[in-house]
Protein backbone atom coordinates (compact mmCIF):
# COMPACT_ATOMS: atom_id res chain seq x y z
CA UNK A 1 0.00 0.00 0.00
CA UNK A 2 2.93 2.30 0.49
CA UNK A 3 3.57 2.05 -3.23
CA UNK A 4 0.04 3.03 -3.80
CA UNK A 5 0.38 6.17 -1.78
CA UNK A 6 3.67 7.00 -3.36
CA UNK A 7 2.06 6.96 -6.81
CA UNK A 8 -1.07 8.79 -5.86
CA UNK A 9 -1.32 12.27 -7.28
CA UNK A 10 1.90 11.96 -9.26
CA UNK A 11 1.32 9.33 -11.89
CA UNK A 12 -0.59 9.84 -15.07
CA UNK A 13 -3.94 8.29 -15.82
CA UNK A 14 -2.77 4.89 -17.06
CA UNK A 15 -0.26 4.41 -14.30
CA UNK A 16 -2.68 5.44 -11.63
CA UNK A 17 -5.20 2.91 -12.87
CA UNK A 18 -2.57 0.23 -12.84
CA UNK A 19 -1.76 1.08 -9.29
CA UNK A 20 -5.37 0.82 -8.31
CA UNK A 21 -5.87 -2.48 -10.08
CA UNK A 22 -2.66 -3.85 -8.66
CA UNK A 23 -3.97 -2.94 -5.26
CA UNK A 24 -7.17 -4.87 -5.98
CA UNK A 25 -5.19 -7.85 -7.16
CA UNK A 26 -2.67 -7.67 -4.38
CA UNK A 27 -5.50 -7.88 -1.91
CA UNK A 28 -6.50 -11.20 -3.43
CA UNK A 29 -3.08 -12.54 -4.30
CA UNK A 30 -1.60 -12.32 -0.85
CA UNK A 31 -3.37 -15.42 0.50
CA UNK A 32 -2.26 -17.35 -2.58
CA UNK A 33 1.39 -16.66 -1.82
CA UNK A 34 1.00 -18.68 1.31
CA UNK A 35 -0.26 -21.70 -0.59
CA UNK A 36 2.89 -22.03 -2.65
CA UNK A 37 4.80 -25.27 -2.17
CA UNK A 38 7.76 -23.52 -0.54
CA UNK A 39 5.72 -21.74 2.03
CA UNK A 40 5.01 -23.09 5.46
CA UNK A 41 1.30 -23.78 5.86
CA UNK A 42 0.47 -21.11 8.37
CA UNK A 43 -3.15 -21.48 9.44
CA UNK A 44 -3.82 -17.77 9.87
CA UNK A 45 -2.61 -16.86 6.38
CA UNK A 46 -4.73 -19.30 4.38
CA UNK A 47 -8.31 -18.37 5.19
CA UNK A 48 -9.45 -18.45 1.58
CA UNK A 49 -9.36 -22.15 0.89
CA UNK A 50 -8.05 -24.09 3.84
CA UNK A 51 -11.01 -24.23 6.23
CA UNK A 52 -12.94 -26.77 4.16
CA UNK A 53 -9.89 -29.01 4.11
CA UNK A 54 -9.77 -29.07 7.85
CA UNK A 55 -13.48 -29.31 8.37
CA UNK A 56 -14.26 -32.10 5.91
CA UNK A 57 -12.50 -35.33 6.64
CA UNK A 58 -13.74 -37.42 3.74
CA UNK A 59 -11.16 -38.07 1.09
CA UNK A 60 -13.05 -36.92 -2.02
CA UNK A 61 -13.93 -33.53 -0.63
CA UNK A 62 -10.53 -32.92 0.85
CA UNK A 63 -8.96 -33.79 -2.42
CA UNK A 64 -11.19 -31.52 -4.40
CA UNK A 65 -10.55 -28.56 -2.24
CA UNK A 66 -6.85 -29.11 -2.42
CA UNK A 67 -7.08 -29.42 -6.15
CA UNK A 68 -8.93 -26.14 -6.37
CA UNK A 69 -6.94 -24.25 -3.83
CA UNK A 70 -3.38 -25.23 -4.55
CA UNK A 71 -1.91 -26.75 -7.60
CA UNK A 72 0.55 -28.93 -5.70
CA UNK A 73 -0.68 -32.51 -5.35
CA UNK A 74 0.78 -32.83 -1.83
CA UNK A 75 0.91 -36.52 -0.92
CA UNK A 76 -2.60 -37.58 -1.80
CA UNK A 77 -1.43 -39.40 -4.92
CA UNK A 78 -3.27 -41.19 -7.65
CA UNK A 79 -6.15 -42.26 -5.54
CA UNK A 80 -7.12 -38.66 -5.02
CA UNK A 81 -6.56 -37.74 -8.61
CA UNK A 82 -9.27 -40.20 -9.59
CA UNK A 83 -11.57 -38.58 -7.12
CA UNK A 84 -11.32 -35.24 -8.93
CA UNK A 85 -13.91 -36.58 -11.37
CA UNK A 86 -16.56 -36.51 -8.69
CA UNK A 87 -19.49 -34.44 -10.00
CA UNK A 88 -21.13 -31.45 -8.25
CA UNK A 89 -18.19 -30.50 -6.09
CA UNK A 90 -18.73 -28.37 -3.03
CA UNK A 91 -17.63 -24.85 -3.91
CA UNK A 92 -14.94 -23.18 -1.88
CA UNK A 93 -15.98 -20.20 0.16
CA UNK A 94 -16.55 -17.09 -1.89
CA UNK A 95 -17.30 -18.84 -5.17
CA UNK A 96 -20.74 -17.82 -6.43
CA UNK A 97 -23.17 -20.46 -7.69
CA UNK A 98 -22.80 -19.30 -11.27
CA UNK A 99 -19.14 -20.18 -11.12
CA UNK A 100 -19.66 -23.80 -10.10
CA UNK A 101 -19.10 -24.90 -13.68
CA UNK A 102 -16.90 -23.28 -16.30
CA UNK A 103 -18.56 -19.99 -17.13
CA UNK A 104 -18.32 -17.12 -19.56
CA UNK A 105 -18.02 -13.47 -18.72
CA UNK A 106 -18.27 -10.26 -20.70
CA UNK A 107 -15.38 -7.86 -20.28
CA UNK A 108 -16.15 -4.16 -20.20
CA UNK A 109 -14.02 -1.10 -19.60
CA UNK A 110 -14.62 1.53 -17.00
CA UNK A 111 -12.16 4.40 -17.16
CA UNK A 112 -9.32 2.06 -17.97
CA UNK A 113 -10.30 -0.60 -15.47
CA UNK A 114 -11.46 -3.90 -16.97
CA UNK A 115 -14.46 -5.45 -15.30
CA UNK A 116 -16.14 -8.75 -16.09
CA UNK A 117 -19.78 -9.65 -15.64
CA UNK A 118 -20.77 -13.33 -15.80
CA UNK A 119 -23.06 -14.01 -18.75
CA UNK A 120 -25.35 -15.96 -16.45
CA UNK A 121 -26.13 -12.70 -14.68
CA UNK A 122 -26.05 -10.44 -17.73
CA UNK A 123 -29.35 -9.27 -19.18
CA UNK A 124 -28.10 -7.32 -22.16
CA UNK A 125 -26.06 -4.45 -23.49
CA UNK A 126 -27.21 -1.24 -25.13
CA UNK A 127 -25.38 1.69 -26.57
CA UNK A 128 -25.23 4.80 -24.44
CA UNK A 129 -27.16 7.76 -25.76
CA UNK A 130 -27.18 10.84 -23.61
CA UNK A 131 -30.64 11.78 -24.84
CA UNK A 132 -32.02 8.36 -23.94
CA UNK A 133 -31.34 8.81 -20.25
CA UNK A 134 -33.66 10.99 -18.19
CA UNK A 135 -31.98 12.39 -15.07
CA UNK A 136 -33.94 11.98 -11.85
CA UNK A 137 -34.21 14.16 -8.80
CA UNK A 138 -31.67 13.77 -6.11
CA UNK A 139 -28.16 14.31 -5.06
CA UNK A 140 -26.63 10.97 -5.97
CA UNK A 141 -23.91 11.82 -8.44
CA UNK A 142 -23.45 8.27 -9.68
CA UNK A 143 -27.14 7.93 -10.55
CA UNK A 144 -27.38 9.00 -14.18
CA UNK A 145 -31.12 8.55 -14.59
CA UNK A 146 -33.68 6.27 -16.17
CA UNK A 147 -33.28 4.59 -19.54
CA UNK A 148 -35.85 2.56 -21.38
CA UNK A 149 -34.85 -1.07 -21.68
CA UNK A 150 -37.15 -3.84 -22.78
CA UNK A 151 -40.17 -1.65 -22.37
CA UNK A 152 -39.49 -0.42 -18.88
CA UNK A 153 -37.59 2.41 -17.26
CA UNK A 154 -34.36 1.16 -15.75
CA UNK A 155 -32.01 3.13 -13.50
CA UNK A 156 -28.57 3.60 -15.00
CA UNK A 157 -25.52 4.31 -12.87
CA UNK A 158 -22.05 5.62 -13.62
CA UNK A 159 -19.97 2.54 -12.88
CA UNK A 160 -16.71 4.47 -12.75
CA UNK A 161 -17.93 6.55 -9.84
CA UNK A 162 -18.94 3.43 -7.98
CA UNK A 163 -15.88 1.27 -8.45
CA UNK A 164 -13.11 3.83 -8.39
CA UNK A 165 -12.19 5.52 -5.13
CA UNK A 166 -13.23 9.19 -5.21
CA UNK A 167 -9.69 10.50 -5.11
CA UNK A 168 -8.76 8.42 -8.13
CA UNK A 169 -12.03 9.13 -9.83
CA UNK A 170 -11.45 12.84 -9.54
CA UNK A 171 -8.06 12.59 -11.17
CA UNK A 172 -8.92 10.01 -13.79
CA UNK A 173 -12.44 10.58 -14.91
CA UNK A 174 -14.07 13.64 -16.32
CA UNK A 175 -17.64 14.58 -15.54
CA UNK A 176 -18.18 14.57 -19.25
CA UNK A 177 -20.59 11.82 -20.19
CA UNK A 178 -18.89 11.53 -23.56
CA UNK A 179 -16.66 8.88 -22.03
CA UNK A 180 -19.70 6.59 -21.76
CA UNK A 181 -20.23 4.21 -24.63
CA UNK A 182 -22.44 1.37 -23.48
CA UNK A 183 -24.80 0.28 -20.75
CA UNK A 184 -24.53 -3.22 -19.32
CA UNK A 185 -27.81 -4.46 -17.84
CA UNK A 186 -27.81 -6.86 -14.93
CA UNK A 187 -30.30 -8.45 -12.56
CA UNK A 188 -32.97 -9.28 -15.08
CA UNK A 189 -32.56 -5.87 -16.66
CA UNK A 190 -33.38 -3.93 -13.51
CA UNK A 191 -30.08 -2.02 -13.36
CA UNK A 192 -27.87 -0.52 -16.03
CA UNK A 193 -24.14 -0.04 -15.56
CA UNK A 194 -22.81 2.67 -17.84
CA UNK A 195 -19.28 1.94 -19.05
CA UNK A 196 -16.77 3.13 -21.63
CA UNK A 197 -16.92 0.11 -23.88
CA UNK A 198 -17.67 -3.58 -24.01
CA UNK A 199 -14.92 -5.97 -24.98
CA UNK A 200 -14.61 -9.73 -25.45
CA UNK A 201 -16.40 -12.63 -23.88
CA UNK A 202 -14.00 -14.90 -22.02
CA UNK A 203 -14.37 -18.42 -20.68
CA UNK A 204 -13.23 -19.15 -17.17
CA UNK A 205 -12.99 -21.99 -14.73
CA UNK A 206 -13.55 -21.01 -11.17
CA UNK A 207 -10.01 -22.01 -10.28
CA UNK A 208 -8.68 -19.34 -12.63
CA UNK A 209 -10.25 -16.70 -10.47
CA UNK A 210 -8.99 -15.39 -7.18
CA UNK A 211 -12.28 -15.35 -5.36
CA UNK A 212 -12.82 -13.17 -2.38
CA UNK A 213 -13.90 -15.11 0.64
CA UNK A 214 -14.61 -12.07 2.75
CA UNK A 215 -16.37 -9.01 1.39
CA UNK A 216 -16.55 -6.50 4.14
CA UNK A 217 -15.58 -3.89 1.57
CA UNK A 218 -16.30 -3.75 -2.14
CA UNK A 219 -19.12 -6.24 -1.94
CA UNK A 220 -19.49 -5.91 -5.68
CA UNK A 221 -16.06 -7.42 -6.28
CA UNK A 222 -16.41 -11.21 -6.54
CA UNK A 223 -12.84 -11.85 -7.55
CA UNK A 224 -10.01 -11.04 -9.90
CA UNK A 225 -8.47 -12.77 -12.89
CA UNK A 226 -4.77 -12.14 -13.29
CA UNK A 227 -4.60 -13.59 -16.77
CA UNK A 228 -7.09 -11.06 -18.10
CA UNK A 229 -6.24 -8.34 -15.61
CA UNK A 230 -9.87 -7.91 -14.78
CA UNK A 231 -12.14 -7.76 -11.78
CA UNK A 232 -15.26 -9.92 -11.77
CA UNK A 233 -18.31 -8.22 -10.41
CA UNK A 234 -21.00 -9.98 -8.44
CA UNK A 235 -24.20 -8.64 -10.01
CA UNK A 236 -26.58 -9.48 -7.11
CA UNK A 237 -24.25 -7.77 -4.65
CA UNK A 238 -23.82 -4.84 -7.01
CA UNK A 239 -27.58 -4.45 -7.35
CA UNK A 240 -28.04 -4.64 -3.62
CA UNK A 241 -25.45 -1.95 -3.15
CA UNK A 242 -27.25 0.31 -5.63
CA UNK A 243 -30.57 -0.19 -3.92
CA UNK A 244 -29.37 0.48 -0.44
CA UNK A 245 -26.72 3.10 -1.01
CA UNK A 246 -22.98 3.00 -1.11
CA UNK A 247 -22.05 3.08 2.53
CA UNK A 248 -19.92 -0.02 2.15
CA UNK A 249 -18.15 1.10 -0.97
CA UNK A 250 -14.39 1.19 -1.20
CA UNK A 251 -12.91 4.14 -0.09
CA UNK A 252 -10.47 4.66 2.57
CA UNK A 253 -10.24 8.39 1.82
CA UNK A 254 -13.95 9.02 2.23
CA UNK A 255 -14.13 6.87 5.32
CA UNK A 256 -11.25 8.76 6.77
CA UNK A 257 -12.94 12.01 5.88
CA UNK A 258 -16.11 10.94 7.64
CA UNK A 259 -14.30 10.05 10.79
CA UNK A 260 -12.61 13.41 10.75
CA UNK A 261 -15.98 15.09 10.98
Amino acid at each position, binding site marked *: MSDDKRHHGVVDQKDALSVYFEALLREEVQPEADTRPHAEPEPETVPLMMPPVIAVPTIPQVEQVIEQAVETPVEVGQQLEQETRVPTPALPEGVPDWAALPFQALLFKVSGLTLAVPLAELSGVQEWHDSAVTP*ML*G*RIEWYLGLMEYRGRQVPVVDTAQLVLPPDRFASLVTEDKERLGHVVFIQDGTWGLACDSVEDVISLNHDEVKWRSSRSKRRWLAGTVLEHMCAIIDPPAFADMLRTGIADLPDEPSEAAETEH
Partner: protein
Amino acid sequence: MEEQENTGHDPITEWVTYRLGDEKYGINVAMVREVLKSTEIAPVPGAPYYVLGIINLRGNVVTVIDTRTRFALPPREPDDATRIVIIEREGQVVGMMVDSVSEVANLRESEIEFAPNVGNDESARYIQGVSNQDDELLILIDLEKLFTSEELTGSAAH
Protein backbone atom coordinates in the same frame (compact mmCIF):
# COMPACT_ATOMS: atom_id res chain seq x y z
CA MET B 1 -58.26 10.79 -5.01
CA GLU B 2 -60.98 13.16 -6.08
CA GLU B 3 -59.68 13.69 -9.58
CA GLN B 4 -59.65 10.01 -10.40
CA GLU B 5 -61.96 8.86 -13.11
CA ASN B 6 -62.83 5.23 -12.99
CA THR B 7 -62.56 3.56 -16.32
CA GLY B 8 -62.84 -0.06 -15.42
CA HIS B 9 -59.76 -1.18 -13.62
CA ASP B 10 -57.56 1.47 -15.16
CA PRO B 11 -58.43 4.77 -13.46
CA ILE B 12 -57.28 8.05 -14.95
CA THR B 13 -55.50 10.68 -12.90
CA GLU B 14 -54.78 14.28 -13.86
CA TRP B 15 -51.39 15.86 -13.52
CA VAL B 16 -50.25 19.45 -13.91
CA THR B 17 -47.02 19.24 -15.83
CA TYR B 18 -44.16 21.67 -15.56
CA ARG B 19 -40.56 21.88 -16.68
CA LEU B 20 -37.31 22.15 -14.81
CA GLY B 21 -34.43 22.25 -17.25
CA ASP B 22 -34.85 19.57 -19.88
CA GLU B 23 -37.12 17.41 -17.78
CA LYS B 24 -40.86 17.40 -17.47
CA TYR B 25 -42.51 16.80 -14.12
CA GLY B 26 -46.07 16.26 -13.01
CA ILE B 27 -47.93 16.99 -9.80
CA ASN B 28 -51.36 15.80 -8.87
CA VAL B 29 -53.91 18.34 -10.06
CA ALA B 30 -55.93 17.92 -6.87
CA MET B 31 -53.21 19.68 -4.92
CA VAL B 32 -52.76 22.60 -7.30
CA ARG B 33 -54.72 25.66 -6.31
CA GLU B 34 -53.52 28.02 -9.02
CA VAL B 35 -50.58 28.99 -11.20
CA LEU B 36 -49.07 32.48 -11.03
CA LYS B 37 -46.67 34.39 -13.20
CA SER B 38 -43.42 35.12 -11.50
CA THR B 39 -43.83 38.05 -9.16
CA GLU B 40 -41.81 39.94 -6.63
CA ILE B 41 -40.61 37.66 -3.90
CA ALA B 42 -39.52 39.08 -0.56
CA PRO B 43 -36.52 37.22 0.82
CA VAL B 44 -36.75 35.76 4.30
CA PRO B 45 -33.55 35.99 6.33
CA GLY B 46 -32.53 32.70 7.89
CA ALA B 47 -34.82 30.62 5.73
CA PRO B 48 -33.69 27.21 4.42
CA TYR B 49 -31.50 27.30 1.34
CA TYR B 50 -34.29 26.32 -1.00
CA VAL B 51 -36.75 29.01 0.17
CA LEU B 52 -36.79 31.99 -2.17
CA GLY B 53 -38.96 34.07 0.11
CA ILE B 54 -42.58 35.02 0.52
CA ILE B 55 -45.25 36.53 -1.69
CA ASN B 56 -48.48 38.26 -0.90
CA LEU B 57 -51.29 36.23 -2.39
CA ARG B 58 -54.47 38.27 -1.99
CA GLY B 59 -53.58 39.20 1.54
CA ASN B 60 -52.11 35.83 2.51
CA VAL B 61 -48.43 35.23 2.93
CA VAL B 62 -47.20 32.26 0.93
CA THR B 63 -43.73 30.76 1.10
CA VAL B 64 -42.13 30.19 -2.28
CA ILE B 65 -39.57 27.47 -2.68
CA ASP B 66 -37.02 27.18 -5.45
CA THR B 67 -37.89 23.81 -6.86
CA ARG B 68 -34.64 23.62 -8.77
CA THR B 69 -32.59 24.08 -5.62
CA ARG B 70 -34.84 21.77 -3.65
CA PHE B 71 -34.20 19.01 -6.14
CA ALA B 72 -30.47 19.64 -6.51
CA LEU B 73 -30.71 21.17 -9.97
CA PRO B 74 -28.57 24.14 -11.00
CA PRO B 75 -30.17 27.57 -10.45
CA ARG B 76 -31.67 29.57 -13.29
CA GLU B 77 -32.75 33.18 -13.61
CA PRO B 78 -36.53 33.64 -13.86
CA ASP B 79 -37.89 34.66 -17.26
CA ASP B 80 -41.27 35.18 -18.91
CA ALA B 81 -42.04 31.48 -18.81
CA THR B 82 -41.30 31.13 -15.09
CA ARG B 83 -44.33 30.24 -13.00
CA ILE B 84 -45.19 29.81 -9.35
CA VAL B 85 -47.43 26.81 -8.81
CA ILE B 86 -49.49 27.31 -5.68
CA ILE B 87 -50.15 24.00 -4.01
CA GLU B 88 -52.27 23.26 -0.99
CA ARG B 89 -52.58 20.34 1.33
CA GLU B 90 -54.56 20.29 4.56
CA GLY B 91 -54.62 24.06 4.71
CA GLN B 92 -50.91 24.44 4.14
CA VAL B 93 -50.12 26.60 1.11
CA VAL B 94 -46.76 26.71 -0.63
CA GLY B 95 -45.56 28.15 -3.92
CA MET B 96 -43.21 26.15 -6.12
CA MET B 97 -41.20 28.14 -8.61
CA VAL B 98 -40.75 26.22 -11.84
CA ASP B 99 -39.27 27.02 -15.26
CA SER B 100 -42.62 26.78 -17.00
CA VAL B 101 -46.01 25.10 -16.77
CA SER B 102 -47.03 22.98 -19.71
CA GLU B 103 -50.44 21.37 -19.50
CA VAL B 104 -52.75 19.07 -17.59
CA ALA B 105 -52.05 15.47 -18.57
CA ASN B 106 -54.50 12.63 -18.15
CA LEU B 107 -52.71 9.43 -17.28
CA ARG B 108 -54.13 5.98 -16.98
CA GLU B 109 -52.82 4.04 -14.04
CA SER B 110 -51.41 1.47 -16.43
CA GLU B 111 -49.33 4.21 -18.03
CA ILE B 112 -47.56 5.02 -14.79
CA GLU B 113 -44.43 3.07 -14.06
CA PHE B 114 -43.03 2.60 -10.63
CA ALA B 115 -39.75 4.45 -10.15
CA PRO B 116 -37.21 2.24 -8.40
CA ASN B 117 -35.38 3.44 -5.34
CA VAL B 118 -31.75 4.16 -5.92
CA GLY B 119 -29.42 4.54 -3.00
CA ASN B 120 -30.58 6.26 0.12
CA ASP B 121 -31.07 9.76 -1.21
CA GLU B 122 -34.20 11.27 0.25
CA SER B 123 -35.04 13.27 -2.86
CA ALA B 124 -35.63 10.09 -4.80
CA ARG B 125 -38.52 9.26 -2.49
CA TYR B 126 -40.47 12.20 -3.86
CA ILE B 127 -40.73 10.51 -7.21
CA GLN B 128 -44.02 8.68 -7.35
CA GLY B 129 -43.50 7.21 -10.77
CA VAL B 130 -42.72 7.94 -14.38
CA SER B 131 -44.73 7.84 -17.55
CA ASN B 132 -43.65 7.88 -21.14
CA GLN B 133 -45.57 10.60 -22.96
CA ASP B 134 -44.84 11.32 -26.61
CA ASP B 135 -41.35 9.84 -26.32
CA GLU B 136 -40.61 12.00 -23.32
CA LEU B 137 -40.45 10.81 -19.76
CA LEU B 138 -42.83 12.55 -17.38
CA ILE B 139 -41.59 12.37 -13.80
CA LEU B 140 -44.45 12.33 -11.31
CA ILE B 141 -43.78 14.02 -8.00
CA ASP B 142 -45.38 12.74 -4.83
CA LEU B 143 -46.34 16.01 -3.17
CA GLU B 144 -47.73 14.17 -0.16
CA LYS B 145 -44.24 12.98 0.67
CA LEU B 146 -42.76 16.33 -0.19
CA PHE B 147 -45.24 18.06 2.07
CA THR B 148 -44.63 15.76 4.97
CA SER B 149 -40.89 16.22 4.83
CA GLU B 150 -39.74 18.10 7.89
CA GLU B 151 -37.90 20.63 5.81
CA LEU B 152 -40.87 21.76 3.86
CA THR B 153 -43.38 21.80 6.69
CA GLY B 154 -40.89 23.81 8.69
CA SER B 155 -40.49 26.35 5.95
CA ALA B 156 -44.15 26.53 5.07
CA ALA B 157 -45.53 26.80 8.53
CA HIS B 158 -46.03 30.54 8.32
